[in-house]
């Protein structure tokens, strides 16, 4: 059977939807600026269930992004301006449902680009991507493999950027020489453990103990913290623990009297952590995700559009919900929009070509397409990444530090530890 979708026109349902959207746009004067047919973007992530916190806040951010872009005239393609519209599908973090969702978004809604969380859901979608040539993005670069050339990881380069925090710490607090680490035993935790081990080794910091792995369903962290503190480390590394773990772990570290340095990948809602512990305790906490009202993000090198305004708007609509996921999908859209405008077309292959032509406009500055060593394909956008520290109760960007520079010096360590944890692309099942 010839794949129908390659030739099929819009189905009746999408036609009605488009007609409806066009009719609605007549009533809104500001939409007149971008009167062309809307360009549809798919949002295929968990919106219900236990992983929803990795999808829903991102969709909220995308809606703000779309309003701002559409109010400013939409996207300028060769045939004029078009508004952008998001179509979401809840994949419940299940590969089979993700496959169904990808089919719906591509064949029925006619989207031009699909953003995913990735992880468990990506292998279900991979055959669809291979067959349709649709352009996909993931937040987890460990989904990348040489087989799929149309999957990119343009925002998160987790966990590679974690090396910047460790290197900064080693340079700025050289008397810290010993560390321990804990992580949840899952697809995010393990590659991150390998990365931190490589970073600590490169920085000459000694690991006092094997990394302590805990089950993702853990709720009581007192035993974990007791174990971490047993060897009197100077640094405790929380790996890529989710905020559901970082908060109770920090609370326990505080209660059990830890006085040393903490380094972590994320510190979402750190104001709440300060309230649970103390300002003194959290002072100097190093992590990798800035608040977007940080003045350092107004530098010309930053490609994220109006980070301060986006942050303010997000907090206004979803108070207390800001986290890394809030801006990452929107930043992918910034980059996609730039590539589509460069190509003059929203078609996946044209955008992909424009995107990969030269350096990419990563949220934190122009960056290189990279990843051959670790993922087997140069589809991760890797450049500078901010090192953030809490100072006087507020997250402050200390420095933007280059990931490729680190990798050029210590790449062999990274490969060694990734191999030990079975995380290289050719080791994955």
């Amino acid at each position, binding site marked *: *059977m010839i794949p129908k979708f390659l030739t099929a026109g819009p189905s009746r349902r999408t036609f009605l939807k488009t007609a409806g959207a066009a009719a609605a746009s007549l009533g809104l004067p500001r939409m007149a600026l971008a009167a062309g047919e809307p360009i549809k973007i798919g949002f295929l992530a968990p919106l*219900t269930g236990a992983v929803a916190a990795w999808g829903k806040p991102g969709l909220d951010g995308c809606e703000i992004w779309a309003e701002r872009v559409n109010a400013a005239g939409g996207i300028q393609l060769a045939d004029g301006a078009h508004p952008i519209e998001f179509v979401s599908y809840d994949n419940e973090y299940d*590969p089979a449902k993700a496959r*169904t969702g990808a089919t719906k978004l591509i064949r029925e809604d006619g989207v031009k680009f699909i953003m995913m969380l990735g992880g468990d859901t990506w*292998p279900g979608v991979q*055959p669809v991507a291979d067959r349709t040539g649709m352009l996909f993005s993931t937040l987890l670069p460990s989904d990348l493999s040489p087989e799929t050339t149309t999957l990119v990881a343009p925002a998160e380069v987790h966990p590679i950027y974690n090396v910047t925090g460790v290197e900064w710490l080693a340079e700025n607090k050289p008397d810290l020489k010993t560390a321990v680490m804990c992580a949840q035993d899952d697809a995010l935790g393990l590659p991150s453990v390998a990365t931190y081990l490589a970073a600590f080794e490169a920085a000459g910091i000694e690991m006092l103990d094997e990394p302590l792995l805990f089950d993702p369903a853990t709720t009581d962290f007192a035993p974990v913290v007791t174990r971490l503190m047993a060897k009197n480390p100077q640094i405790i590394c929380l790996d890529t623990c989710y905020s559901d773990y970082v908060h109770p772990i920090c609370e326990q570290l505080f209660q059990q009297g830890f006085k040393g340095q903490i380094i972590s990948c994320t510190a979402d809602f750190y104001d709440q952590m300060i309230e649970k512990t103390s300002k003194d305790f959290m002072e100097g906490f190093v992590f990798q995700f800035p608040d977007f009202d940080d003045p350092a993000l107004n530098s010309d090198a930053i490609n994220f559009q109006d980070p301060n305004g986006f942050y303010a708007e997000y907090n206004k609509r979803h108070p207390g919900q800001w986290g890394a996921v809030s801006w990452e999908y929107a930043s992918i859209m910034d980059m996609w929009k730039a590539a589509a405008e460069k190509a003059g077309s929203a078609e996946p292959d044209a955008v992909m070509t424009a995107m990969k032509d030269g350096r990419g406009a990563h949220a934190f500055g122009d960056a290189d397409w990279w990843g051959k060593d670790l993922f087997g394909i140069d589809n991760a956008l890797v450049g500078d990444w901010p090192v953030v520290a809490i100072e006087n109760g507020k997250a402050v960007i200390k420095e933007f530090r280059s990931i490729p520079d680190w990798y050029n010096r210590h790449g062999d360590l990274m490969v060694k530890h990734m191999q030990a944890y079975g995380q290289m692309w050719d080791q994955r*099942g």
Partner: protein
Amino acid sequence: MRNLSILLVGLAALIALPHALSFSQQEILVFLVINVLLVTSYRLLTLTGEWSLGHVVIMGVGAYASALYTKELGIYVPVSMILGAVTAALLAVLLSFPLFRMKGFYFLIGSFAAGEIIRLIWKRFREPFGGVRGISGIDPMPDFSIGIYQFDFFEPVSYYYFAGAIVIASLWVLWRIEKSPVGLTFHAVHWQDKLAQASGVNLRAYRTLAFAIASGFAGLAGALQGHYVGTVNPNSFDIEVMVFVLTWAIVGGTQTFYGPILGCIVLTVLNEIVLREMGLEQARPLIYGAIMILSILFLPNGLESLVQKATRRKPVAKPEEKAAT
């Protein structure tokens, strides 16, 4: 003659069905067909009076086994699917030793425990099970042509025909088993186990047999799903999925052969198509939960009782339905 024509019309309707659906509905149809086999195999187990919470994990055993046979040993996909089913059945025989020391509620919880241990083994041993990420890049069913129809197994319609044929054949086998003396003994084990024992029936052997057959077909369903989606991971077979299977069976009713199938179809269409079309993303579990409660309160004998009422008025009720009750 009349039955034959009904059968032919039904078959034609099943062949025509996917062409009346949208692309995503065709995808849902594939999973629906696989789940029909899963829930029907589950019913065979419940005939003996045992309710398991490990059935979905057993399905996963079939999926993992079949995926590994093709990946590690290079076995031809259809053959490895059958081997996957056999593996699931053999594991069930093994599990029956500890599990069948329990009955009723203890069996329910014991089967849950056994399932959790299997899932933990998948997570813990990255070789060969792939850890929490599971196995991806599972070989798809190789495409082939039968002259009038070219099977392209990426296409949901093709896979629907392929899986549908296997499922119908499996349902027929399950049906024959139920109607055979062995199947009638399963019923007896449930309803009058003292009496059955007194009349010389080896209860344990029959329960084990039912468990193994049910597990084998669940494993086959898992293999069908694994080679279509291309990936398996421990989370796809967790207790939340099991809860869905349990509710399909109970909401549909387990007195008749078609009850669980009816429950599976109605609830899947409701959850995956109707509620999604209504645009109720966050409220979907709420409405689904409410419908489950309402149906169990007001249709305690399941959806099948509605069908029975409807068909009883007409004298041409399918005879086999009566026989099953």
